[in-house]
């Protein structure tokens, strides 16, 4: 198989993967963020403590997350058909991908939000803020570096899932690799897809890490970013002697 033969196939497959992963990530983030925040708020000692809601949502998220994706996909077939009118193609694959992605992201959000210092919540309450203010002004912005890292993890997981979805008619790079590489022994094309995926995943990871670190450095909670500076003696923080108003 020559490169000119491969090129249109690859372009098509990349586009399909991009559509599947792009849309499902978007839906996973939009759906998972409120769910994750809700899990923290309704937990014991949370601002909206509610054991029933917490247990139910927690259980749904657990089941959604632990189910093998291929089974979820098959199980959701009727639902997918109801939504998109078909079970074949990239658009159809978005449905199970998004539904698999929501609980995945929700758990990561929960962990990220839980790490926000409770003192900040208390400070905003003392200012007269309500729960919604706490979520908007404290929990989400303060957890943002972790939330970006969680999004990166979710995108990469969804790329993995999308390859699975591809084999049952979703298209994309996974489908290409199986059809040509496995069924027709076109190892050349298979390795090209492997290379594309490897590069794409590395780039996404790099971009995600970079963004998270940039935000973190700005926020600068100690202990995270500066690894190289350990060798240099830390300069003492500006003294605040004689600054009395």
């Amino acid at each position, binding site marked *: 198989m020559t490169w000119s033969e491969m090129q249109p196939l690859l372009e098509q497959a990349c586009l399909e993967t991009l559509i599947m992963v792009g849309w499902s990530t978007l839906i996973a983030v939009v759906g998972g963020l409120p769910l994750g925040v809700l899990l923290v708020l309704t937990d014991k000692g949370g*601002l*909206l*403590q509610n054991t029933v809601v917490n247990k139910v949502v927690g259980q749904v998220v657990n089941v959604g997350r632990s189910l093998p994706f291929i089974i979820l996909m098959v199980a959701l077939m009727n639902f997918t058909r109801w939504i998109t009118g078909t079970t074949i193609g990239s658009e159809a694959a978005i449905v199970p991908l998004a539904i698999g992605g929501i609980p995945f992201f929700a758990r990561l959000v929960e962990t990220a939000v839980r790490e926000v*210092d409770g*003192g*900040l919540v*208390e*400070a*905003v*309450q*003392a*200012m*007269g*803020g*309500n*729960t919604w*203010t706490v979520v908007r*002004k*404290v929990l989400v*912005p*303060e957890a*943002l570096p972790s939330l970006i890292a969680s999004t990166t993890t979710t995108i990469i997981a969804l790329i993995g899932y999308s390859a699975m979805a591809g084999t049952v008619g979703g298209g994309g790079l996974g489908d290409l690799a199986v059809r040509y590489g496995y069924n027709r022994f076109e190892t050349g094309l298979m390795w090209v897809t492997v290379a594309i995926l490897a590069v794409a995943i590395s780039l996404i990871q790099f971009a995600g890490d970079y963004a998270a670190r940039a*935000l973190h450095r*700005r*926020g*600068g*909670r*100690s202990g995270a970013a500066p690894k190289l500076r350990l060798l240099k003696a830390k300069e003492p*923080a*500006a*003294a*605040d*002697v*004689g*600054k*009395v*108003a």
Partner: protein
Amino acid sequence: MPGAHIRAAHSTVTETHVITTSGLTKVYRSRGREVTALDGVDLHVREGEVYGVIGQSGAGKSSLIRCVNLLERPTSGTVTVAGQDLTALAGRGPRASRELRQARSRIGMVFQHFNLLSSRTVQDNVELPLEILGKSGKERSRKALELLDLVGLADKAKAYPAQLSGGQKQRVGIARALAGDPKVLLSDEATSALDPETTRSILQLLRDLNRRLGLTVLLITHEMDVVKSICDSAALMDKGRIVESGTVGELLATPGSELAAALFPVGGDATGDDRTVLDVTFHGEAATQPVISQLSRTYNIDISILGAAIDTVGGLQIGRMRIELPGRYEDNVVPVGFLREQGLQIDVVEPAAQPSALVKEGAK
């Protein structure tokens, strides 16, 4: 505010109570066990004063200050701040009612660990309470810059909290607490995470704000020095109860006051068995009289001074001296009476008096 009228340079204390708690009780229940953090606390903080609540960890100070703005719901009792009964506003259920949130926005609070949002600049942190109050962007930034100027951090407006020292962070915390123009500032161990020098500058700032803005400050601390350097009144807490309270002057005038002794310790042990050891406290008029030499001449007795100190406590010039008279107490009733007549406060030191827990804590 800079340029705003500066009130009387010394004291702004009036007789109106701005914070009152009565019968405040807080019981924590967990796994069937009950812990009483507050056990019927009656607190009266007058308008314009700096009131310090001191006690060891676990004494209930933290619960007390959190009950004042109802971050903690008291189990029973009432809290009144600036004439408003907050416990009545609380509403049912764990969530704060709208009225309570409005009342809270008029009570500033500063925290031991500053609690600044790391994702926001210094200015944006100070603007946060104003955002909650729904002020316009222009008004917010004007007010925030004004407050940062007031706490001496005008040049750090665009910095992030991570770039500041501990003392600077607490200044931002104070500026933020003042954003809602509160009459009352609650300070939860605001200097406990700071080094001694920075502690002094933060206390100085609080004192300054108290005087310039007529701000009432309720602070909790475990450091006697904090009470000593800025408080007009103080209360000692132990096991959820207020053991002693009053203005610093009243406390010092209370015989056997544990707080007074801890605020102003004098050392020195009796040199022998047949001796009477007295703690003499001078303040006000009495401090200017040569009482010791009068005593010596009038009764012809030799007086040894075991320890003495003169200090300013809560803006009051106080002298304390531990003296020793020859003979047992029974032999010295007349000279002791003489000293009392001079308007001095005399505490007879028992030979083997055990130092109280608080004094031991202070000595560490």
